[in-house]
């Protein structure tokens, strides 16, 4: 169920990358794909009825099936931060693209030959 949602989101992101002519939209589509992939990864670790993988007073002991899989969550934590790094670099590149080519629309950009 969650898988389907995230796959559709990936599809929308790819569609956006291919149709949109505004570079800012490319960045946004990339971010949508990132979010979708993150949801997908966390979903692979979900266990029906499982608890968050934190030992507390109420859930003090280990048992198979009690907690959801923590490893995908750790991976997603990394992936989210990597996404931010990519986005920040992309945003700063866009600022300079706008300065140099006076537009961020692929069709109106000046001085992009070939």
């Amino acid at each position, binding site marked *: 169920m969650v898988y389907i949602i995230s796959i559709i989101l*990936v599809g929308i992101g*790819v569609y956006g*990358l291919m149709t949109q002519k505004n*570079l800012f939209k*490319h*960045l946004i589509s*990339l971010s949508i*794909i*990132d979010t979708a*992939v993150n949801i*997908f*990864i966390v979903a*692979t670790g979900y266990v029906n009825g499982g608890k968050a993988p934190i030992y507390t007073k109420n859930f003090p002991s280990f048992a198979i099936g009690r907690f959801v899989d923590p*490893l*995908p969550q750790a*991976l997603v934590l*990394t*992936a989210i931060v*990597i996404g931010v*790094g*990519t986005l920040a*670099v*992309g945003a700063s*590149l*866009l600022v*300079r*693209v706008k300065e*140099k*080519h006076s537009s961020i629309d692929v069709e109106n*950009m000046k001085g*992009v030959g*070939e």
Partner: protein
Amino acid sequence: MISLLIAIPLLLAFVSVMWKRLAKPLFFLAAVTNMTVLLASWFPNSVEIHVMGSWKPPFGINLVFDNASFYAALVVNFFFFLVSLMPNLVESYGVSLMLLMAAANGFVLTGDLFNSFVFMEIMTITAVTVASRRENFYNAFKYLILGGIAGSIYLLATIFAYTATGSLNMAHVSMATISASSLVAITTLYAIGLGVEAKLFPLNGWVSGVYGGNDLAPVILGTSVSFAALYMVGRLFGTVFHGSGAGVLYTLALITIIIGEVAALRQQNLLKAFAYSSVAQAGVVVAMISKGTSRAMGLAYFHLTNDAVAKFVIFLVAGFLVYNYKNLNGVFKKHKVLGASFSMATFSLVGFPLFAGFQSKLRIIMELFSMKDYLFPAVMLLATLIEVGYVVRWNVKLWFEEETDEKADNPIVAGTLALILSLLLVAVFIKPEIFLGGAMKMGNALADTKDYIHGVLSVVKGGM
């Protein structure tokens, strides 16, 4: 020892952000240290691992140091070392280059799928930074978007591998029994994910813009980084997935060769022409890797080493020319040393006798005939014909056409390096063992899955 290959450049990068002026000398220091560490542990001939945080292999992250990763790390660090010798090429990009170096080393050495994703992303981000030099922002942005998508797909592939096997360790994934349909999913996604860095056909739109946009990017991205990426293709499809998904790779690679060469022939910009040629060579290497035998893979990396050395010279000279002259006609009359090394490197690219490229192309074609594959040699011969076309055209243009009055100072360091490397190409023709020995060891190590699994999973030792 081997964790130092990653730790030292990282530490120095963190330090040099506080003292900006030190970035260049520290980059040089990092490159020298890495070369020393590598030379001190010459060809391990066995599979050594370094366990991070002393957690045993299928659980924690481990670095793998065998003949394959040693040879790849040696080539990668060698080119970083060469770049660090040229301070006016590095400029303010010292910190980024150190990070790129740490990431490329980590990408080559790691034995963990997710860890390789992290290093790939560092490589993408720093490579984009390097590519944005000389206001090449639009092309860098395109590269960033493609790299970002490739990263997401690579991550998806990794998570498919994790759900199929329950672990992220390459050695464990390679010995686990994965159902055929699952294997198709994983290899397809990995092919897409690596396709951007390995310059495969539908995903190589960024190459000409990034390589053609400034003089630093092609020199480092076209040699070190693409070697690291193509090493990972061999490691994943050769060692970890035992040659599944080879058909897809083979087809894509052949298309890549043709498209790359044709685009190179039509290209009017010196840097971009050879950028497309580097796409085509990557196609040759991937097609050879997809053959899957140890000898084919060894030859693939032999060819890649020759190509990387030749490309380093070509891009170095071309970058100098493009950014110092408006009109390139006849410039080599003023720069005879640069011209001589450029011509030698381009002839090696085509595969004229007397140069290294001849040895690798001949061996590859003979190997393919012995495997009864006639399509690929035909494609390669066609590609060589096209190569002759543009190489001769550029050489004629740069040597013999009417020169203009422009004059730039001879770059002494770059000229010397270019000359030494192009003489190295001649030396490799006379004595191919210089590269061939290491490349063959690399091919054997990549094809020998059993040894890899044994080395990683049963030899549990911490330590340097």
